[in-house]
């Protein structure tokens, strides 16, 4: 039988278009993992950079033939750092997209609200891997069973910060925190850490989640300053933290201000550096950041070298349907480095899971990893009662145009 060449051409076009149109058509044996994070709004940079870091490694793995000959597909939705959207996105990912697991979620209020949903889906054995939050709920019963964390907790971050401030004689600690579960988590961490030294926080103030850099934080400055603190720990997102730092410095209040890992130090620094330039004032002095991954400048670490190489090679774009062209990706950042490490560890776990890819075997596989070397000079290990891979907290401060590891805490001695 002879085919009309035009007909067969049309048919192939038709199938090609159909293939493009149907979402997640992919190959039947692709491993689809789901992500819900802020891709728009004041915390957009966190979701986007986390996604880019992960995609750098996933693209690399897929180009090498995938995991156990299966392609890894990261399906992402935007929740704008809003708990309700995060819950809806999770339902979509689990029920419609039927993802293998959840990955790279961003934020404490969002993840905290998703946790009961994971319990609800326990019969589907949906686990959340490496959420970008150090909050306590997913590290403790009953939800720790459904979540695997890579990063250290906020409690560890705040504890470390408080410990160092107290050592430097800065015992009067004030806290500015986001009025939600994330802020509360950090606030609680500071409170607990101070308790060990029989101290109490000398002042506290809150701000509304979603605050932008344009917003004034003068009120919060005016609340905290009369308490005469020696240092302020900010449990916030980068736009709000930057705004607070700006208004504090504008009020000639130059005490050390510390941020947690969640803040996204690179985008925060970017905002402050822009203001420094336009106003001719240095807003970047006396800043301390707690981080849960090593500095992406430390090229002595194999993981950093690979991260830089893959980021340079692929320069992953954020999902076009979620992020407009206006977004300027950060070249390297702590966030994308964390995303990279998340993806690297996940690929390792999936490859250990084997070709059958049985969800039920996932927790056991993770817990049996032993001390795994991710290439950051800190072994990753999980246990059935410890679903957190890393415990190291790194401290950085601004030097020049970037955050670098703190070599000398004495500068904050008083």
């Amino acid at each position: 039988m002879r085919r009309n060449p035009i007909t067969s051409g049309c048919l192939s076009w038709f199938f090609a278009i159909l293939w493009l149109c149907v979402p997640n058509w992919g190959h039947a044996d692709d491993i689809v993992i789901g992500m819900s994070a802020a891709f728009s709004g004041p915390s957009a940079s966190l979701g986007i950079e986390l996604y880019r870091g992960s995609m750098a490694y996933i693209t690399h793995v897929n180009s090498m033939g995938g995991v156990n000959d299966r392609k890894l597909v990261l399906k992402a939705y935007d929740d704008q750092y809003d708990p309700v959207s995060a819950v809806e996105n999770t339902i979509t990912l689990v029920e419609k997209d039927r993802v293998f697991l959840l990955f790279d979620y961003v934020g404490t209020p969002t993840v905290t609200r998703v946790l009961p949903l994971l319990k609800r889906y326990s019969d589907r054995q949906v686990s959340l891997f490496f959420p970008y939050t150090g909050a306590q709920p997913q590290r403790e019963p009953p939800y720790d069973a459904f979540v695997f964390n890579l990063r250290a907790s906020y409690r560890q971050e705040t504890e470390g910060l408080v410990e160092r401030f107290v050592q430097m004689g800065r015992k009067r600690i004030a806290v500015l925190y986001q009025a939600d579960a994330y802020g509360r988590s950090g606030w609680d961490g500071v409170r607990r850490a101070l308790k060990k030294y029989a101290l109490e926080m000398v002042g506290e103030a809150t701000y509304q989640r979603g605050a932008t850099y344009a917003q004034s934080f003068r009120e919060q400055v005016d609340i905290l300053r009369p308490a005469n603190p020696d240092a302020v720990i900010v449990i916030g997102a980068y736009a709000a933290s930057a705004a607070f730092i700006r208004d504090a410095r504008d009020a000639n209040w130059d005490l050390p201000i510390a941020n947690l890992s969640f803040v996204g130090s690179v985008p925060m620094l970017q905002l402050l550096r822009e203001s420094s330039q336009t106003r001719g004032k240095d807003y970047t002095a006396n800043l301390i950041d707690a981080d849960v991954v090593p500095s992406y400048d430390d090229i002595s670490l194999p993981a950093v070298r690979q991260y830089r190489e893959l980021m340079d090679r692929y320069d992953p774009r954020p999902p076009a349907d979620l992020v407009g062209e206006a977004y300027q990706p950060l070249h390297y950042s702590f966030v994308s480095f964390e995303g990279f490490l998340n993806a690297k560890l996940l690929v390792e776990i999936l490859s250990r899971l084997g070709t059958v890819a049985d969800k039920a075997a996932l927790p056991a596989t993770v817990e049996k990893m032993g001390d795994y070397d991710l290439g950051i000079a800190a072994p990753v290990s999980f246990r059935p009662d410890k679903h957190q891979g890393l415990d190291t907290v790194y401290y950085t401060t601004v030097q020049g145009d970037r955050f670098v590891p703190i070599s000398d805490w004495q500068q904050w001695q008083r």
Partner: protein
Amino acid sequence: MKMSKLFYKTLVIIVLLFGVIATATSVLSGWNLYQRLTAQYRSKGTALAKSIADSSVETLLNSDAATLQAIIDQFLEIEGISYVFVVDAQGAIIAHTFVPRIPAELFQVHGNKHATSIQDIHITGVGDFIDVAAPVLVGVAGYVHIGLNKETIRAAIRSAIIGQQSLMFAIFLISVLVAYLLVNRVSQPLNQLTAHVKQLAVHDFSTPVSGQAEIARLSENSKDEIGELAASFLSMERTLQHSIENLKATTAAKERIESELKIARDIQMSILPRIFPPFPKHSEFDLYATIEPAREVGGDFYDFFLIDDDQLCFTIGDVSGKGVPASLFMAVTKTLWRVTANKYNRPDRVLADLNNELCRDNDSGMFVTVFYGILHLSTGELEYSNGGHNLPYFLSRQGVVQPLENTGGMALGVMEDVTYRTKAIALRAGEGLFLYTDGVTEAMDSAENLFSESRLQACLQQVNGVAPTEVIRHALEAVKQFAAGAEQNDDITTLAIRYLRQ
């Protein structure tokens, strides 16, 4: 257009009424709503506080602040809830939703261990709240506080009242419109009627009144009081028109009759001798007479003539009744008297014959009183006979005034074959007679007192020895003064004779 007065009054009433209703309903429903919403908010707050308290026992005991925060954050999405905060067993606030800080007032709010407690609190610069505190594990684990903003209640009340008042205002506008239309429907025909009636007042009815057609249409179209009023106006108008036409006809007829009566009066007067002195050649007597009918024509009469050179006969009479019938009877009587007086030389004979003549064919039943006298000029002897008339007064030379002796005859024309008698009296020079009809003595003043014989007699006594003209003038003047403008209701006739023979 000028506002109808009826509408203006209605509008004022509507405005007052609606003002009262609007105020009353606003106050009532505002108060009701406040009570209901407050109660509702309190129970809502109680339920929510309890539910948070119940669900956070474990979390509180675990001191899991982040999860607690996640729990209470969800409740902020519920309408009316302004804040939630959780106090732990040590009394420290370990989770709250305040930005940028916890208001100082809330540190003073304490819960009750055994029940949810509700307090009204005021937060400076923020507003009024209802604080509901629920104990967790009988207060051992802490307390959950929920703040409900009273402004939400106030806003609900405001919007409800605004909605209600908008509705009231709409109803008010519709009512005014309806009232305007209704009042207009009533007042417009009323105005039309009023204008028409005003026009009627100055109308002379020589031509039909304009606008009658519209009023007629009104009476047909409106089957209500207005219609009836219009119909009444119309009927009144027609009656008025009819009466005025009648009046005009009657007036014309009357005018015609009056002019005829005037002619009749002229004729009647012309049959009475009216030239005085009547006999200038005779110096033996002086005679004067007047007649003043109460109407155009009357039933009184007088007459006199010289039978011969020595005998002057004279008469005065009064027909029963007045007006035209009396005047015709008088004419007949006077004419027959002339004939009869010439036929006989004795007064009783004259009256008897005249009586018989008058009785013949007297179907009208009228009668006449007559006094008849013959004066012998050479001797002064007076023969007379009376047929039911007022007796004349004898005016003596000594100033004595007295009636003549009666001859006793009855009025003429009543029955036939009546006998009369003659009597005689001798007049001396200067003496005379005054004859009159009852119109003189029965003249009335406004109080209906009669002039009477006594007044006449007194009056005559004052004028002794004067000419008949003066006697009559004096007597009539007295009557006129007595009546003092009262209407004359009977013919007044007088005749005076004065014997002058030396």
